[in-house]
Every structure is written in C-alpha cells, then in structure tokens.
C-alpha cells in the first residue's frame, strides 16, 4: 500500500485549469521524482499535498485513509514536511530560531530552553560539516547567509520536524556539487529510515542520481510513472513535451542584420549568474526555460529596475550603466511587462495619460502639451489598431489585450532601438496576440531589436529567431533554426549541472 496516494485531483484557479485529474502514488521508503514543463501542475499538486491549497475534486489517501488538510499545520501534524522553493525561513530570525520554529524545546515550566535549542541546532548543522561554508552558527541571522546556506538551513528546518513524507521542491537549486552530494547522502539515510521523498528538480542528472521512480506531468495531468532504471532522458523529455510540434511557422518579413544592437557580458545579480549574449538589430531573441530561472530578472535588470552586481552592457557599441529606468530609456530602450496591473497600466487614469507617460518621463519638459503629444502618439494608435471610445476614458475600460496595446504604444512612441518584452501576451486574446506578433515583425524589419521572454513555450519558439535557454540564472543553451523545438528546449532546460 502506498504511504501517500492522490487520485483524480483537480484544481482550477479562476479560468485556468492547473490540475485536470492527477494520479500520484508514493511508496514507503522511495525517492520519487516529479518532473514536467512549465505550468504542468507539479507545484499545485505539491501544494495540495502540503495543505496550502485545497483541491476542487479528487482524493488524497494517507496510509490508505482519506485525508483533507485545512492548512499546512494539519499536513505537518500528519507527518508531511515541505521544502519550499521560495524558502520559508524568516530572514530577521536566527538559524536556530528558524530551524525549530513552532517546535522549540521547552523546560519544565514551559519556557523556551535556548541552550537546548542551540545545542540541537549545532548538532544539526554539523551534519553538513564543511560544505556549509563559513559563518553559519545557531545565532547567525538567516538574512546574513548566502543563498546556498539559506537553502541548507531550510532543509534542516524541514527535517527538524521529523516528517515521514518530505517534498523537496527545487531544494538543490542554489547548491554546489559538494553540497548536493551531502544532501543526497542525507536523503539516502532518510530513505533507509523508511521515509518517503517527493523530489522536484530542474536537473535531469539529479533525477537519475537520486530517484527510484519518476512521474512525468503534462498539462495538469500525470502522463506516466516508471522506475528510473527502465527509462532514458530522451524518453522523459519526450513525455514532458508530448507530441505537440511547433505551430506552423509564422510568416516573417524581418531579416536580422549583422549590426549588434545590444551586447551583454557576464551579467550577475541576485538571480543572474554570468549571462552573456549579443542581440542584433532586427532580431528577436527569446528567453526560455523553466519559470523563474532569471529570464524576467535579466529584462528588469537591463531596464535598470533591479540592481546588477557586475557585468557590462553595451547599446549600439556604447557602454550603458543601467542605474534606473529613466537613464536606460534615454538610451532608447523600452520595457513592456505582461503584468499589466503591477508594472503596466495606471488603471483609473485616462488612455491618453497612459499613452504619453513614457514620453513625459523621458523628456525634460515642465508642461504637458496635449496637442503635440497627441500628434506624437497618433501614428502608434493606428499602427496598433487600438480601439477605444475616447482618449479621455479610463484605461481600465479596455480589454486586457487593448490595455497591453496601450502599454506597448507608450513605449513605441519613444521610438526605441531595443525592446524588452517580459511575457507581453500573458492573459490576452488570440487576435491581439497575432496583432502583437505582426507589430514585432514590422519593428524588426525597421531595425529594432527585441528581447522576448514568454511563459508560453510555443509562442517563444514560433516568434523568436533564437532562443536562449535559462537555468539557475545562466544561459544553458541556444536554439536556432530547426533546433527550435519543445523537445530541445526542455532537454536544455533540464540539462544544467551544479557548479563544482
């Protein structure tokens, strides 16, 4: 009998189906890898098992008995521990306080026993020995630790609860090879103790190294489960991407020129680990891979919205210091986010204001000359086929697609030479998407260079001339021409190795 069994699990967020009948069984004492492409539903399935998301339908059996958790607290009480990808440590609290949060040792009168706490944590830390690196003590503030050290503390925190079932969601993402070896040793010990592990990773090497069985998910459903000994990497990648092929090639009018529009060298930041590439004029370069591997961070860093640690950026051959969006946009670089609510529209303000705000921010003028500005934006209103009742109407009256056209229009009005598009078609209708693709094509034939991140893999492969595949803040591969397939994309997305 499996220790944990989920069947027919369904979950919908708004209109989006995240899980459409997932089947999953975890045996006692096994390490079970869970893999799949973006949006396949693996995180949602884990959150349901962890009790932080409630399923719409389906059953969850623990030791053969049906359970339904009202929250993470109950799941934890049932012996389920979760390593959260985004970490659940409190930065302002110490290592010791974090590891035993909620289960601090107490003395006879019920007061915290700090000595016992710190002794227990010191013992736990010593498990990791040298790979923990310098400066990790029970009293160190977690906020003062490096990314890999925080991950190791999160692992210790999960294990301190003594769980029977452990979900590791990207628990090795920031670790180096030696740290992974130690963590894997620990996981093998857990296995030998009869504990069961669900292991999520974006590294195929790890799947074959640590897991006994693997379940592949696609489009909210589990595709198949098998023992690792009976499968191959290519078979797993094939199962992840399914039979889908790249949509019929779009008609392209643009031909990239040889002139370099944007050159990026060894860019590092909190989430980028040495990114280098060149973007030519009239070229669309896509940023792909699993979600959150640094694609958005790169675009936001290039636009000066998040700080860089080191690296060089050159626009048209001249050095650019991306200190802030205002400085960057004056070098004719524009940024459009698909997160319209947060980074795009000013919802209650008129369409006119939303269209001219970039011009106003760029130009050093004291007054708003309405007629001049209307003249400057009107060609773009036509070009984007923007439909509205009046320029004075609030932008929130428009559909999502038209709102996105307004955001794009405001940037086109600044006549950029480089356009940074961060998932620009998120949540907009097909017709508007086609309009946007056509606009991008047209811009490229005029020599504009486009850097495109998209959460829609098909779109990325169809629209971009080249695709850079990201993994852990690095470019792991480049796909061009006939290589632009989902298979190649996921082969590269899962291919990375840990730094030594």
């Amino acid at each position: 009998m499996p220790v944990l069994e989920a069947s027919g699990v369904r979950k919908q967020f708004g209109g989006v189906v995240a899980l459409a009948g997932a089947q999953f069984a975890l045996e006692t004492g096994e390490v079970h890898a869970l893999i799949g492409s973006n949006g396949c539903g693996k995180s949602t399935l884990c959150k349901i098992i962890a009790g932080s998301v409630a399923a719409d339908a389906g059953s969850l059996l623990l030791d053969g008995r049906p359970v339904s958790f009202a929250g993470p607290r109950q799941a934890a009480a049932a012996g389920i521990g979760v390593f959260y990808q985004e970490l659940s440590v409190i930065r302002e609290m110490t290592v010791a306080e974090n590891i035993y949060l909620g289960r601090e040792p107490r003395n006879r009168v019920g007061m915290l026993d700090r000595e016992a706490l710190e002794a227990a944590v010191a013992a736990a830390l010593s498990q990791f020995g040298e790979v923990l690196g310098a400066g990790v003590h029970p009293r160190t503030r977690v906020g003062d630790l490096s990314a890999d050290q925080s991950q190791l503390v999160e692992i210790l925190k999960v294990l301190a609860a003594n769980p029977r079932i452990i979900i590791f969601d990207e628990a090795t993402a920031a670790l180096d090879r030696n740290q992974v070896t130690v963590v894997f040793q620990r996981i093998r010990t857990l296995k030998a103790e009869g504990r069961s592990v669900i292991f999520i990773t974006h590294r195929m090497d790890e799947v074959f190294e640590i897991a006994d069985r693997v379940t592949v998910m696609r489009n909210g459903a589990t595709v198949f489960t098998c023992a690792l000994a009976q499968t191959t990497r290519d078979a797993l990648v094939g199962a992840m991407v399914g039979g889908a092929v790249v949509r019929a090639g779009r008609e392209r009018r643009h031909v990239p020129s040889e002139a370099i529009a944007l050159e990026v060298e060894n860019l590092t930041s909190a989430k980028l680990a040495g990114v280098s590439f060149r973007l030519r004029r009239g070229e669309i370069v896509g940023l792909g891979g699993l979600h959150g591997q640094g694609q958005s961070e790169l675009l936001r860093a290039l636009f000066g919205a998040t700080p860089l640690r080191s690296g060089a950026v050159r626009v048209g051959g001249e050095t650019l210091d991306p200190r802030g969006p205002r400085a960057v946009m004056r070098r004719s670089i524009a940024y459009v986010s698909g997160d319209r609510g947060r980074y795009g529209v000013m919802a209650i303000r008129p369409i006119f204001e939303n269209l001219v705000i970039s011009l106003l921010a760029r130009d050093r003028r004291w007054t708003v000359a309405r007629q001049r500005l209307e003249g400057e934006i009107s060609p773009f209103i036509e070009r984007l086929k923007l439909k509205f009742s009046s320029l004075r109407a609030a932008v929130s009256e428009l559909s999502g697609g038209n709102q996105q056209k307004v955001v794009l229009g405001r940037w086109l009005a600044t006549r950029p030479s480089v356009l940074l598009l961060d998932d620009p078609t998120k949540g907009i209708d097909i017709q508007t998407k086609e309009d946007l693709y056509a606009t991008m094509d047209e811009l490229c034939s005029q020599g504009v260079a486009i850097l495109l991140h998209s959460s829609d893999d098909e779109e990325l492969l169809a629209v971009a001339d080249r695709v850079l595949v990201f993994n852990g803040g690095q470019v792991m591969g480049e796909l061009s021409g006939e290589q632009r397939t989902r298979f190649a994309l996921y082969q590269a997305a899962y291919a990375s190795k840990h730094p030594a």
Partner: protein
Amino acid sequence: MAAVVFLVLCTVNAVLQPTFLRFGVAASNVAAFLPMALVAVGQTYVVLASDIDLSAGAIVSLVNVVVVSIIDGMGGSGTSMALGLAAGLTLGLTCGVVNGLCVAYLRFQPIVTTFATGIVFAGFALWVLPEAGRQVPPALYLTYAGSVLGVPTVVWILAAAIAFAAIVARTRFYQALRATGGNMQAAYQTGVPVARVRLGAYTISGLFAALAAFALVGETASGDPLIGGALTLSSVTAVVLGGTALRGCVGGVTGSILGAFILGLISNVIFFAQLPFEWQGLIQGLIILTALAGGVVMARGRQD
C-alpha cells in the same frame, strides 16, 4: 541607540533640574511616564507581528471613564473598586479581541480597522462620561502614589510589566509572533497559527491599555473621556524609538519602555530649560526625528 539617547536626556535633565536624581522626583517621573510606557509595551507586541493598534489610546479613555464611573457610581466602597477594576480589565481585553478578530480573522487592513474601532471606543467613552469629572476614593490614588515595602507602587507596576515581557519573550508564542511579523506567508507555511498569534498580540495591547487607564485613574483620581487620545501615536513613536521595526519581527519591549521614557524626558527637558511653551512641539519633533535618523544610519551601517 535608545539607551544612548536616554542617558543623554537624563544628563541634560539632571543639569537643568538639580533634584532630578532624588528618589521622590525620580518616582514621580516614573508615575508620569508610566501610562505611555504601558501602552507602548502592548503596542510592541502588535508591531512585532507587523500590525499596528491605532485604537490603544481610545481603549485607555474608555477603560478610564468606565472604571471611574463604576467606582464613583457604587459609592467608592472596596467592592466597587474591585468590581470597577475587574470590569476595566475585561473591557480592555474585549476591545483587543475585537481588533484582533477584525484584523486576523476577517483580514481587515490593520491601520484602517484599528483607526475605526478607535473612533468607536472613543465614542463610547464620551457616551459613558461626556465631560471630565467624577472621583475615585482616596484609598485608590493614595495606594497608587504610595509605596509597598518601601518601593513606590509605580515602580512595582513597571517591574511587573518588565517581568511579564521577560516571561513572554521566552515562550513559543513570542517566536511565532516574530515569525509572523518577519514573513507571514513563510510563517503560515511553517504551521505557525498566524491568525491566533495576531489575535493574541491585539489582546495583549488591549490588556496594557487597560493597565495604562488604571495608572491614569491613580494619577488623576478622576475620569476623562479624552485622556488617552494622544497616547496612540506617542506609543507608536515610543515603540519605534525603542528600536522595534514597524515592518515587524525586530525589536522588543525593553526598548519601547526606554522609548516612552525618552518621550517623557523630552517634555521634562523642554519644561526645565524654560523654553517657551509654543516651542515644545517643534523641539520634541526635532529630537524624535534625530533619534530616528540615528537609528536608521546605524542600521544602514550594519548592512554594508
């Protein structure tokens, strides 16, 4: 930081007011600063959870007039005093629970919610006692102004508050409170009962508001429906001066008590320096701003 400012102010005060360090004067200073210190202690717990209680001062007013009305209305007997104080305590706790339920369980926005409940509590206070007045029997205010075992009552109360804080700081609740303030989502995922913890913090704030109201009854021997009004923001100021971050998690009660004493000493210094009354607000604001800026500069220095 707060300790440095506190010592500087004590020195300045001692220079301006030679009797400052005398036992009686020191005790009367403690008595004068005690209500704000108590409200600040309660506020600290709420702020540690990254919430805020803008109704604390109104709770003080409400409890103050209710306690005085009950005691005076029942003739000032021993029973009436016990009953009045018990009612006041219950009322303070209830107000805290109302705040906590609205914020933690109904998920209302803390600033707006407690601002609104504060108006309600203040409204009740005016309804109970429209004008300052009524009296409590001498037994009550003489005990408050007197000594027990040679130590002034007010010092005992302050010591009790510090002891309470010391005990709470060694509980799982306190760790859960800081975790909630540090990162609510992470705390929830870890299994911390976030809603219960926030409710607990607001309840403690209500409790200490009630205690502050008792101190004011002892100090003024009468009721005043507007007495607590200024305590809300000065308690928040005391908490921040004492090093507790408004974003939660970092800080503690000791700092807040120091912060309250700093605010009190600033008024003292201005008074004994014989500065014109009109300057008080200006000087007080500048000193607070300087103290806050000093804290920020030091925090930045640590990060680099």
